[in-house]
Each structure stands twice: as structure tokens, then as C-alpha cells.
């Protein structure tokens, strides 16, 4: 291992820093930004002192007069910040609890002082008290091809743990901690009309957006601390007997975060070329194996169905219970999971968090969508894949809970959260993250998206869905796709596979699910046998499939109760065992099927395989003349026994 450090350190020193290649042979991304940071953690004051040299390359054809940077940590400075105004509450008056970042010096090319050119801006809400975005007017505008290099000395005061960031006692999770470039989007990128910086303030419900960058970070901490980062460790040295210095290198990731705590135990494992490192409390070693299994399953599934995981390293952290607020967050090659001491193997919560957070390496890390503006693209798409992985590896019906008397699949939780939400129609799925009203951010970004993606898979099939994501990866890896770009990929792939089977494109699907507020609800209204020419009035298309020389006919009536119109399968089962499959485009408000002949219908099911998971009520999707009451009777029997035993046990 030591030998490897020396080799890597040597490579770094001879190859010229952030512009060079150390981890991968060729750059994965356009390298628009890069950071070299020398950071020192003072556990007593909870401050990180940093010296940073960073660059932004104008790879556009536009002349850019300024640069914009995020100062995320200022969200925790006071209750007047946009974060706290939206979040409610206050960081309090205790100076130890608040967080901030202060720029001590800011110089540009040739040492020119840029502080006089710097001002806080508030592009989202005009909140003058918010200081999470800073704009620096460049003395000389950046022409196409120019590189803007800045040197910033800063101090970051870490907050008492909030939003998976900050400290608890001697535990530190250091994220969003340095001044960070926004993304300059030229005209045409992500459907923009005019070029400009995309640099949003820190909101209560928002995550991040950044260019893929190269990071060379030197971290100084007290000797007893164990450090984990999203980079590769190149070098470690003893600073003064009391502190140590570690040099880390990360390439083509959108953020660099790190953690330091003396209580971590470090474990490593390998999946193909990827070295996986797990930092976990020493008291929770029984979780190590299941955590590695979870991350390796996720790697295998996404690698096979979406695209390769391109880094040779991956670190994940299972934070201690007292700092569990750091759990469940992603920084591409570093993420945090969340388990608990003795959490039973039948509850797959730790696995679910691990799979989900790892998945962000793809949906946000590699496919770097704008989490501020289109949160469904990271959280929703990632939830869809998390659910598929959980149910694939941990059981189709037990991906989340696998108790003898209760099995719950991961995808069920998503659907029922969406379907039962009273606010499911208040806003579309395509909103800026801070615009979701009535606490609908989570439900809309995670659950609704995952549910409509499952529905899309139900319509176009699993293979075509996987092909969509492989194509999405191929086109947009290490770029910034927009929602429209994703839709275009779907349209192209579906067209390629199915031709015009689903129409000229799939926009009809996205207009209703992603960009619409309607619900999907199909119902079998009734079916009955009748004499021909009797009172039944039939206004819709009558489909005659059976012999017509009989005086009898069977009529099936289907309703569309919701606004969403999706193609559905209909299965009609006759008493003699014959079954007829129908395909209904689902567009009209009702649909009647008429069958001439003596045969009598036993049951009718719309969407018999439950592929249209957006349907908010599966119960009314079927109708039968003899419903199976066995499960209800069984339930009733068990309930009676349970209550009898319970009353017998709790009384003397």
C-alpha cells in the first residue's frame, strides 16, 4: 500500500497537478473546473482553514464577464438566510452551533485582489440577508478558451450537525465547505436561450449542481483522527507529532467532501477494479458484511444495466448513531449510509440506504443533472434504480422487510407514499426543488418519479427501459443532462425498438406523468350477461369476438376515473377457463367490450400484471363473481387468535 502511495505521489508531482491524470488514464470529463486545497481542521474551534487555488475554463464560445461561486456554508449563518427562512427554526444564538464561510483573501491572475469586485447576489429570492452565492466581476472578461485562476484563503466554521453536514463532539462531516464555482451554461445547454451562470442559493429543499472537477486536497487533522474522502489517498505524513497530513486526489467528481472521527474502523473490499473502503463505528462491526454486499450488488446491477462505474475507488461511511444526521448523503465517490447497532437482517434499511446513496454516483455523479432545478432527475431516477436493485437482490416482495408475517418490497413503499398522498396533484413533477408546496418535495421528487418510471417500464418493457438508461449514460455521462434530454433519449430508444407502436414519440407519457398533475385510475365498472337487443346501451366501440348466432352476450364495462390516459391490458376470464386479452388505449372515459355467445364471464382484470403502477387504486382494477375470501377469513382467524393470546398474556 505504501508503495502505491509513493508511486501515485510521484505521478502527481511529475505530471503537473490538477490538469494531469493520476486515477484514470484519460479524463472522463471536460475538466472545466479544478481545485487544489490545503485544509486544516481545528477540532476545538470546529473550523477548517483553507488555502485554495481553483480554475474555471471558459469552454464556451461566449465571453463571460464574471464568475459566480457558492458559499453554501453561509446558509447556516443566521435565521435570515434563505435556507432558514424556508426551513423554519433558527441556528440559535450559540455561536458554536452556527456555520459560515469567510473569504479572507481572494486574488486572481497576477495576484490582483478580487475582493473589491466581489458581491453577494440572490438570484432566486432577492433575500439580501442570504450570502450563499457570490459574484466576482472579472477585471478582464474571460474570452472563449481563457482560464480564470483564483486563489482564495478562507475559514469555514462547521455548524452543529445539520443537513448531513457539520460536527457532533469529535465527529466531523465536512461538506459544502469551500468556495465552489457555479456552472456556466452557454446558450443551448439544458435548453437555455441565453448563456449565464447557474448558481443557485442554498435552499431548505435543494441539493447541488457543479461541473466535474479535479481535486487535490491536503487535509491536516490531529493524529488520532481517521479520515475518509471521495478521493484516493496519495500520501500521508506526520506534521508535528500531534497532527498528520493526508494528500488526496479525486478526478471527475462534482463535489469533494470528507469526514474525520477517531472512532472509525476501516474495512476494505474489492469489486472488479474498484477498491471499496468502508468507515464504520468500531461497535458496529456486525454490519460490515451486509454493507459490502449491498454496495457490491448495486455496483453489479448498475454496471450491467446502465454503464460502467469508472473510478477505481469508492468510499462509504456508516456514521455513528450520535452523528446519524450525517447519514444518507452522496458525494459521488464518497457516500454515507445509515445503519444501527443490531439492526436485524430482516429489515433491509441499511442496504436500502447504501444502494440508494451509491446509486447517486450515477444519477447526479456521472449524469450530473441540476439537482436544484430538476430534483426528480437524481432522486427520482435513483429511487427507481434503488427499488429495482433491492427487489432484485433481496426478494421481489421482500426488498425492504422480510419478516415471516410481513414482507414489503421497496417499490411498494414508493407507490403507496405517492398514491396515498393527499397532495399528489398540487404541483407537477417538474419544479425547482424549493418550489414544492405542502411538503411535497420528497413525495414528488422520489416517490412519484420512481412510480412513473416503473409505469414507463410496464409499458415499454424492462429490456427497453434498460436500453434507455444505457443510451442515457452513453450520451450524457460527465455532462449536464436536462429533463428534456432524458425525454429525448426515451423517445429515440423507444422509436428505435418499437417504431411507431407508441406513437411518434413518448411525449404523451411525460406530458401526463412528469409535466402533469393528473392521477391514473382505471376501474372495472361491471360485467354481465344479457340477451341481445336488451336494455344495455352501448356507446363505445363494441368488439365482437365470439360467435354471433347466439341470443346471449356478455358485456364488460371499464371506466377511466383519473385524468391520466395510459394504454392498459385487459384480461377477461370466462367460466369455462377461456381467457381473452384486450388492449385498451385507455383514452376514452369508458370502454365496453361485448362478447356474443353462451359463455359467461367469471372475472375481468385491468392491468392484470400491475404494470401501471401509477394507478392509485389497484382494488377497483378487477371484478369477479366469486372473490377469494380465503385471505380475509385467514386474516380474521389470525386476528382473533392474536387478540385472544394478547388478552390472555397481559392479564394475571
Amino acid at each position: 500500500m505504501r508503495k502505491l502511495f509513493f508511486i501515485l505521489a510521484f505521478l502527481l508531482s511529475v505530471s503537473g497537478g490538477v490538469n494531469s491524470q493520476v486515477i484514470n488514464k484519460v479524463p472522463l470529463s471536460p475538466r472545466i473546473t479544478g481545485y487544489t486545497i490545503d485544509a486544516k481542521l481545528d477540532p476545538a474551534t470546529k473550523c477548517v482553514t483553507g488555502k485554495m487555488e481553483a480554475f474555471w475554463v471558459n469552454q464556451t464560445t461566449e465571453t463571460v464577464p464574471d464568475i459566480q461561486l457558492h458559499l453554501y456554508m453561509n446558509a447556516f449563518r443566521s435565521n435570515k438566510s434563505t435556507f432558514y427562512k424556508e426551513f423554519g427554526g433558527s441556528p440559535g444564538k450559540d455561536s458554536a452551533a452556527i456555520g459560515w464561510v469567510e473569504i479572507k483573501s481572494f486574488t486572481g491572475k497576477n495576484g490582483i485582489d478580487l475582493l473589491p469586485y466581489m458581491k453577494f447576489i440572490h438570484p432566486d429570492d432577492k433575500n439580501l440577508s442570504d450570502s450563499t452565492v457570490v459574484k466576482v466581476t472579472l477585471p478582464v472578461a474571460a474570452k472563449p478558451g481563457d482560464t480564470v485562476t483564483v486563489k482564495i484563503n478562507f475559514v469555514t466554521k462547521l455548524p452543529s450537525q445539520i443537513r448531513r453536514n457539520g460536527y457532533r463532539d469529535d465527529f466531523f462531516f465536512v461538506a459544502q465547505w469551500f468556495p465552489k464555482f457555479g456552472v456556466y451554461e452557454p446558450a443551448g445547454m439544458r435548453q437555455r436561450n441565453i448563456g449565464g451562470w447557474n448558481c443557485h442559493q442554498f435552499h431548505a429543499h435543494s441539493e447541488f449542481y457543479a461541473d466535474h472537477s479535479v481535486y487535490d486536497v491536503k487535509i491536516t487533522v490531529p493524529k488520532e483522527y481517521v479520515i475518509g474522502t471521495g478521493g484516493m489517498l496519495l500520501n500521508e505524513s506526520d506534521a508535528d507529532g500531534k497532527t498528520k497530513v493526508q494528500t488526496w486526489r479525486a478526478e471527475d467528481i462534482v463535489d469533494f467532501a470528507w469526514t474525520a472521527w477517531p472512532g472509525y474502523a476501516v474495512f476494505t473490499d474489492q469489486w472488479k477494479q474498484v477498491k471499496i473502503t468502508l468507515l464504520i463505528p468500531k461497535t458496529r462491526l456486525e454490519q460490515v458484511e451486509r454493507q459490502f454486499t449491498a454496495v457490491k450488488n448495486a455496483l453489479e446491477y448498475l454496471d450491467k444495466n446502465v454503464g460502467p462505474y469508472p473510478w477505481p475507488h469508492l468510499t462509504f461511511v456508516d456514521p455513528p448513531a450520535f452523528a446519524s444526521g450525517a447519514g444518507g448523503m452522496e458525494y459521488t465517490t464518497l457516500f454515507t449510509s445509515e445503519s444501527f447497532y443490531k439492526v436485524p437482517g430482516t429489515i433491509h434499511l441499511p442496504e436500502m440506504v447504501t444502494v440508494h446513496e451509491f446509486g447517486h454516483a450515477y444519477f447526479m455523479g456521472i449524469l450530473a443533472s441540476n439537482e436544484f432545478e430538476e430534483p426528480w432527475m437524481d432522486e427520482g431516477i435513483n429511487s427507481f434504480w434503488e427499488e429495482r436493485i433491492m427487489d432484485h437482490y433481496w426478494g421481489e416482495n421482500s426488498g425492504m422487510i422480510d419478516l415471516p408475517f410481513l414482507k414489503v418490497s421497496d417499490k411498494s413503499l414508493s407507490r403507496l407514499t405517492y398514491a396515498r398522498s393527499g397532495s399528489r396533484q398540487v404541483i407537477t413533477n417538474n419544479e425547482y426543488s424549493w418550489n414544492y408546496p405542502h411538503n411535497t418535495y420528497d413525495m414528488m421528487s422520489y416517490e412519484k418519479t420512481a412510480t412513473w418510471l416503473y409505469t414507463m417500464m410496464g409499458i415499454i418493457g424492462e429490456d427497453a427501459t434498460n436500453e434507455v438508461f444505457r443510451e442515457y449514460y452513453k450520451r450524457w455521462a460527465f455532462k449536464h443532462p436536462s429533463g428534456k434530454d432524458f425525454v429525448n433519449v426515451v423517445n429515440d430508444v423507444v422509436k428505435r425498438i418499437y417504431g411507431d407502436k407508441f406513437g411518434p414519440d413518448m411525449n404523451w407519457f411525460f406530458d401526463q406523468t412528469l409535466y402533469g398533475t393528473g392521477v391514473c385510475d382505471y376501474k372495472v365498472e361491471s360485467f354481465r350477461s344479457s340477451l341481445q337487443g336488451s336494455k344495455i346501451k352501448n356507446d363505445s366501440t363494441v368488439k365482437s369476438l365470439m360467435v354471433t348466432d347466439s341470443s346471449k352476450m356478455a358485456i364488460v364495462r371499464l371506466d377511466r376515473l383519473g385524468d391520466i390516459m395510459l394504454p392498459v391490458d385487459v384480461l377477461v376470464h370466462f367460466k369455462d377457463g377461456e381467457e381473452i386479452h384486450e388492449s385498451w388505449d385507455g383514452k376514452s372515459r369508458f370502454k365496453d367490450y361485448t362478447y356474443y355467445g353462451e359463455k359467461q364471464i367469471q372475472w375481468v382484470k385491468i392491468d392484470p400484471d400491475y404494470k401501471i403502477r401509477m394507478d392509485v387504486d389497484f382494488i377497483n382494477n378487477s371484478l369477479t363473481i366469486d372473490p377469494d375470501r380465503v385471505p380475509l377469513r385467514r386474516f380474521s382467524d389470525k386476528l382473533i387468535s392474536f387478540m385472544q393470546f394478547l388478552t390472555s398474556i397481559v392479564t394475571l
Partner: protein
Amino acid sequence: MKIFKALGSGCHRSLKVWKGILIFWFISLSLVSLVAFPMKGIMKTGFGQSAITGKLLNGIDVEVLSDLGAVYKSLTHSFSAGLLLLLLLWLLINAFLTGGLFNSLKSNDEKFSAGEFFRASARYFLPFMVITLIISAILILLALILIVIPMGGVASPDNPNESVPWLILIISVSLYILISQVFVLVADYARAWQVKNEKPACFRALGFGFSRSFRRFLSSFPMMLIIWLVQTMFVLLVLKVIGNWKPASGFGVFGLFLLSQVLLYIRFLLKAWRYGSVTSLKELNDPLPSSEATVNI
């Protein structure tokens, strides 16, 4: 030796009063059905003629249940309200019926009489109710002191040592199980004394219960632990069998019902075994110094 003699005698006595236990079982079933059947009705209404119930054949399906929407809410409300009502009612009925049961258990050779069973139930209802309430209150308080308060103190996520809350929980629950058996013993001794002394005197009965439990601790307590162990293993077995069996036919469901009721009958039998064993142990220890036969409190 005395313990096994008492356990054997308790077993004999409990089998002898099988008709009384049948009354226990029947009332329990009737009472619980009053709560469970309306819930079944609600579910039936919720699912209507849907074919989706087939999805429930493999067990609880949270998606299907959640699709019941408002019906599901009324189902959960019915369950919580029904369970609470049931517990309160059973507290009263249990106090009533145990009077008859203890009375039938006090003799090794008397024949069971349903008339005498109900007469005794009525006669001892009030003292048994008071004994039940006082001992139940003590047990709740004990749970508060031994489990809730210590766990509240250490279960904070701020606790840096994650294993400590678990250790405390295991110790607390173990202690609670051990100590609670002493109070169950007190209640059983008190009730055995009460039926022997016929005239309702619940506080004197409790006094006897405490006195006998502690004076004969070395013989009484291990016996209670043996009974507790057997009963616990039985309940675990029942959970395993009833919990895992998912019959998919009407015949199978009827079989499940029969089996669960037989197991419940055995559960009542085991409870009567405890009552009989404590009564027998009391009798074995009864040729005591006169000062101990009746207790002044």
C-alpha cells in the same frame, strides 16, 4: 421436591377443571369475535367483488391494504379502539372467571361443578378485581422503573456507545421478567388464600400473598420460573405455527381456526396449571405455624 410435587398436583387439578377452562375459552372467543367480525366486515366491504384478494394469499400486502384508502383508516381505528375495549373488558371478565377457577382448583378431588364455578366467580369478583388492579399497577410501575426510565436515559442518539442501550435493555427486560414473577406469585398466593378463606378480604389476601411469597421464596420462585419458561416456549411455538401457516383453501383456513383455538385452550390450561401449582404449593406449606396461617397486616 416440593416444587415438582406442586407442579404435578397443579397439572392434575388443571386437567380436572377442563370444563371451567372451556368456559374461559368460549367467553374469550365470543368477546374477541365481537371486535374481529366487524373488522372482517369492513375489509369485505372495502374489497367488494375485487379479484385482488388473491394477492393477499401470500400474506399481508401493504400496497393492497393501502389501496383500501378510507376503509383502511377505519380498519385501523376499529382495531385500536376494539383492542383497547377488549383489554378493559377482559380485565373485568378475567377477574370474574379466575374466582371460579381458583375455587375449583382448591381441592384435588372435588368434581367440577359449573354452578359452583359461577357462584364462586361472583363471590370473589370484587376481591379478585382489587388484587388484579393492585398487582397490575405494581407491574406497570415496575416496567416504568426497570425498563422505560433506564432506556429513556441511555437510548438517546447522543450516546456515543451504541452497545450500551442494548445491554441495558437486555438487563432491564431480564430483571423485569424475574421480578414480575414475584408479583405474579403474590397475586396467585393471594387469590388461593382468598378462595380458601371464603369471606372477601382482598387486602388480607394480598398480605398473605406477599408474606408467603417471600417466606417461601426458595420453593415458590423457582416454580414460577419453570412455569414461565414453559408458557413462554409455548407462546413462541404458537407464534411460529400460527404466524407461518398460510392456508390457501377454505378447508385450510378452518383447520387454522381449529388449531389456533386448540392452542388457545392449551394456553388457558397452562395458566390454570400455574394457578393449581401455586394453590397446591400453598397447601403443601400450609401446616405452618399458626401465626403464618393467617396474616395480620
